[in-house]
């Protein structure tokens, strides 16, 4: 093999490699474009209905029915607001939702963290099968007992039109306890409990004095999840709240849709919907990272 032949071979190999890497770069570039394109279309489709909700909330029925549709805000926001208040006691319903949401979430965080802590930190007899039982209850669909649940709430507890009906029944969720157990196991060292015991802290108070303050991030993440679920719940409040002034927002909004005197006033409906949705959108956007972390912690260890 002559030297010139060798250089020629090396040259060809190099050229081939360059061509290949150029093709590879092209392929990567097209992939990048296609991937980002798909994601952008999807993000647009996810977010657009919210934009549309805010736009329609400011338009009168005439503007909404116009052809082509108007994509910019109209000037009927105030009229829609007044019309809405004449149909539903919006702020009263809003206050109901806030009150029920906060009390329910607080109670649920207390019960779930206590339960999760006990399952994570104590080796008590029966722990294994009690925890298995707890997990099994997650598999039971709510629909199985819905009829007697309502009989219990209405006939025996007399909780119709009372906040208790929305606050207490779901206050200790199996999911929440399971979730808290994962968190406690990963973040609280058992030496900490021993140290507290040696320092003479009463066994019952270790959780409240020592552990609970360390669980703040977990309270935030799980609390947002519980609060949003509670805020959005529909069937429960629909069953137990029969007085307009006791409705939570979703039930109230449904009334806005079904009000027979008014027919279909999309602007008013969208205003109510926007005002009920906005707080949750703000909560979510302010705490996205925490919320996602919370959600996936529960899912991955399942």
């Amino acid at each position, binding site marked *: 093999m002559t030297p010139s032949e060798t250089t020629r071979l090396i040259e060809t190999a190099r050229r081939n490699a360059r061509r290949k890497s150029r093709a590879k770069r092209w392929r990567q570039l097209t992939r990048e474009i296609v991937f980002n394109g798909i994601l952008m279309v999807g*993000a647009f489709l996810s977010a657009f209905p919210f934009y549309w909700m805010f736009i329609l909330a400011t338009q009168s029925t005439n503007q909404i029915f116009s052809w082509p*549709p108007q994509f910019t805000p109209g000037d009927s926001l105030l009229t829609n607001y007044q019309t809405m208040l004449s149909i539903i006691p919006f702020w009263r319903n809003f206050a109901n939702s806030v009150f029920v949401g906060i009390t329910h979430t607080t109670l649920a965080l207390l019960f779930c963290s206590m339960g999760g802590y006990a399952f994570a930190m104590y080796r008590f007899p029966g722990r294994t099968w009690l925890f*298995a039982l707890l997990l099994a209850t997650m*598999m039971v669909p709510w629909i199985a007992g*819905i009829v007697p649940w309502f009989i219990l709430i209405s006939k025996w507890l007399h909780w119709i039109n009372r906040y208790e009906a929305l606050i*207490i029944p779901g206050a200790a969720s199996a999911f929440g306890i399971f979730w808290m157990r994962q968190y406690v196991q990963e973040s609280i060292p058992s030496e900490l409990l021993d140290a507290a015991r040696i320092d003479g802290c009463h066994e019952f108070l270790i959780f409240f004095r020592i552990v609970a303050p360390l669980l703040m991030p977990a309270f935030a993440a799980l609390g947002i999840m519980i609060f949003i679920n509670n805020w959005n719940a529909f069937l429960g409040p629909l069953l137990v709240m029969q007085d307009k002034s006791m409705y939570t927002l979703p039930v109230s909004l449904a009334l806005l849709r079904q009000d027979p005197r008014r027919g279909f006033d999309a602007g008013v409906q969208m205003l109510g919907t926007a005002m009920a949705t906005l707080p949750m959108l703000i909560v979510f956007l302010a705490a996205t990272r925490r919320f996602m972390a919370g959600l996936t912690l529960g899912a991955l260890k399942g």
Partner: protein
Amino acid sequence: MNQFITAGATRLSTAPRASLWREIQRNWVAYVYISPFFILFGIFGAFPIIYSFILSFQQWNGISPAQWVGFENYIRLFQDRLFWLAMWNTIFIGVIAHIPILGGAMVLAFIINSAAVRFKHFYRSAYFLPVVTSPVAVSLIFSTLYGVRFGLINWVLVTLGFPPIDWWGGNGEWIKPAIIILFIWRWLGWNMIIYLAGLQGINPELYEVAAIDGANLRQIFFKITLPLMQPIILFTLVLSTVGAMTIFDEPYLLVGTTGGTNNAGLTIAMYLYDRGFRFAHLGYASAMAYVVSAVIVFVSVLNIRFFGRSRTEV
């Protein structure tokens, strides 16, 4: 529990029963801490489920004394045309909606997780927005989008030269698609976030090794990603089954209690609500609740059998 007994026995070499009792006493705090769940579940979960079973053999309107009727509720239920229609609607909506939901969520998660994409955080938030919105709000928004004369979707269709869709009229053939589209929009993001978290848990070295071995994107997805995601897919399948079989809010708000034209949007939860709470056929509704729950448990067990080969618990 046996473990605890034997452990206690070897350590203290006393009678097992005495040491078990001592173990229970020593851990009394734990029992107090877990008691709220078991008390509340007993009252608001277990009791209604057991009572529902008894009620399903009775005829009761909630006021006059209940009558024992044996299997009559179940017999009538299986002869009830609307029950079967509602069952069919529910399963149809659930299955058709979840093919794009789960498939799309997996593909989107795979795309977002790939190195080719920037702004991952932005996309995650955008896709998750529908999930934090209440089903009621979503249904109201979509009912304006579906507006026959003014709806945005029909405007787009007409502008592109297609005939507008009469969503609620005709034979009701567009009612199920309307519910399905809404359902996809609302739940795709949730499943995507779950899958994305699963993907991020996969060791990136596996991908590198595969790339060195010359695997292309499709091979990587089907040979590495999917098998490793199996437990998470199972998790979403089980939750989706329960969610789809008990769908209520969205169709109830879109088409009302009877499910619209030809009951095309009547789901099983709506029919149960209608019988149980509007007409107070409490026994009949309980029987229905039990049949639906049996279907859910059956499908969940099937899911676990097929997708959870090596797993014994969920």
